[in-house]
């Protein structure tokens, strides 16, 4: 039984890591309509930025901030110089996905000669071990959970209570109407890329901390988990992404406790398939499911 309790604790960590990444990804999709396949590579680039800072002796918590800033700037520049010009040219959605894949290939392979193929680790990322009623977590893991909770609250606050947030929701719902109502969509889009880029960068550093050991090849895995959680919750729905992260993070650890651990991701994805069969638009998607015009 206490294996399950311990697994529950681990699930809390897992879901925190996934949530930050998934929310960023889903907001990008929801507001700009881009399935940004380069998201994982931006995450891993930010993780490496934090790594070099950490190697210079700075604590990883500062590195996290640096990673977030890097992610924000990198994503913003990507949009400004690559995605946006293509969109203005009238490239179809499919074309944009292809562009994002090409970008991810380029980022991964430009990074490879620079950072090398070795796996690396951050220093001092354990902290003391705490045990409470069967849950076994390190102080750093608890800190990660804390960071995730804070981020979720900030995102909630942004979307609900700020003008920018409302403008973002309006642009997501109907860009033309939003523009006609005087919302400066171009500036909103810029802000979206900065904010989701920061989430992406932060998520990358957190995920790298969580894995203890990471290399460029992990970027694809980061993307896949974020994507799965986002789709589970309803693509484009930030709260859905949070729920998706909770489900995937928790199911992964609990099934590792209950059955053969090498199947833990299979079970998590199996749940996802089940949801997609029963409710293919995702858990929280508000829009109609039927194949209506569009």
């Amino acid at each position, binding site marked *: 039984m206490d294996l399950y309790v311990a697994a529950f604790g681990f699930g809390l960590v897992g879901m925190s890591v996934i949530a930050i990444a998934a929310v960023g990804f889903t907001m990008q*999709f929801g507001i700009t*309509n881009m*399935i940004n*396949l380069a998201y994982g590579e931006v995450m891993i680039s930010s993780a490496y930025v934090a790594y070099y800072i950490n190697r210079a002796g700075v604590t990883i918590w500062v590195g996290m901030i640096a990673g977030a800033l890097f992610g924000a700037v990198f994503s913003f520049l990507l949009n400004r110089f*690559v995605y946006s010009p*293509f969109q203005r*040219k*009238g*490239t*179809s*959605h*499919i*074309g944009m*996905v*292809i*562009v994002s*894949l*090409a*970008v991810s*290939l*380029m980022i*991964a*392979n*430009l990074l*490879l*000669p620079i950072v090398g*193929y070795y796996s690396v680790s951050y220093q001092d990322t354990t902290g003391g071990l705490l045990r409470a009623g069967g849950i076994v977590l390190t102080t750093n893991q608890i800190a990660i959970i804390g960071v995730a909770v804070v981020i979720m609250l900030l995102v909630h606050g942004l979307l609900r209570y700020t003008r920018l947030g409302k403008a973002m929701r309006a642009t997501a719902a109907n860009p033309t109407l939003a523009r006609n109502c005087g919302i400066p969509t171009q500036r909103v889009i810029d802000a979206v890329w900065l904010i989701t880029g920061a989430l992406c960068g932060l998520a990358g550093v957190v995920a790298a901390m969580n894995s203890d050991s990471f290399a460029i090849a992990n970027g*694809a895995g980061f993307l*896949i988990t974020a*994507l*799965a959680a986002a*789709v589970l919750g309803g*693509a484009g729905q930030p709260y859905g992404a949070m729920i998706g992260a909770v489900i995937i993070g928790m199911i992964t650890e609990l099934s590792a406790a209950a059955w053969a651990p*090498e*199947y833990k*991701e*299979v079970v998590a*994805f*199996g749940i*996802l*398939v089940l949801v*997609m*069969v029963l409710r*293919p*638009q*995702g858990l929280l*998607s508000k*829009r*109609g*499911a*039927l*194949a*209506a*015009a*569009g």
Partner: protein
Amino acid sequence: MNSYYAANLLVYAGVDIIALLALNLQFGVSGIVNFSFIVFQAVGAYTAAVLSMPPDTAQGYDFQIYIGGYQLPFPLPWLGGAFAGGLVAIPVGLVVLRKLRSDYQAIALLVLSIITNEVITNARPFLNGAAGLALVPPPFSDVIDPNTETYQYFYVAMTAVCVVLVFVVVNRIVNSPYGRSLRAMRERELAAMAIGKNPVQLKMTVFIVGGVIGGLSGAILVGFIQLWAPSVWLYPETIILFAAIIVGGRGNNVGAILGALLVPVGFEEATRFIPSSFGPPGLIPALQWVAIGLLIIGFLWFRPEGVRPEPRHVFEGAPVREDLEDARAS
């Protein structure tokens, strides 16, 4: 003249052409954004493999675990692969096509592709997990030695026959009244429904046909390379095929052929010729990938309509409409 390399390129070109003709049917003609396409090719390959291999307990095969192993002779494995591709298309189509809006279909299918790959990698006794299936017997290997030039030409010929067959079938579909309904459905779904066409049923049928052809392409490929593992069909492979469709020109079969020659064969293989005998190991190979990415982006920027754009069908008397919707239709 090294015929093995030439045969390799020709067979790959043939396989990619067949795959793209299937994808063009699904995406180019009827607008289904099937981001899980590579799964259908994989299903065809795995099926053809387990149908043609001996059981996993056989001498020399006992280092791998897999279902099936019926040692069936050609053409049964290829037919089986095609059939399996169509079979798998049914549940996928039922869920995704009937219940989802098109922009959600894309991302849902993408995730499906990822899930399938993970499941097969992890569930080792099913299809031998990450290692995949090795020592797949090529068709007619008991009659002709596969390691001869004769066999290579033979394989190219078989692939070419399949290409021609598929091309004829797909052309028939596209140029038939059925195909016109498909195009109408893609461009003006509401109007098509108004005159009584059932878009969901049409889409399902096309999806299944695309699955069958995709499965066939997998069977042909696995017979040639004699090995099939999850690393061969990761989700970016589908995106590369989509890039080929866009670069070649969507919505028309000649465009699909051009795309197959340019992207999976052209870009990916031509970049191998960037000289790699200098620099630290890994630098030039990484730059080869960067070159592939640049080529794709370059084509999408400078020639977004494709090398051979879809011919516009103009009907006398009807005004030709500037179709912005066409570009945004997916």
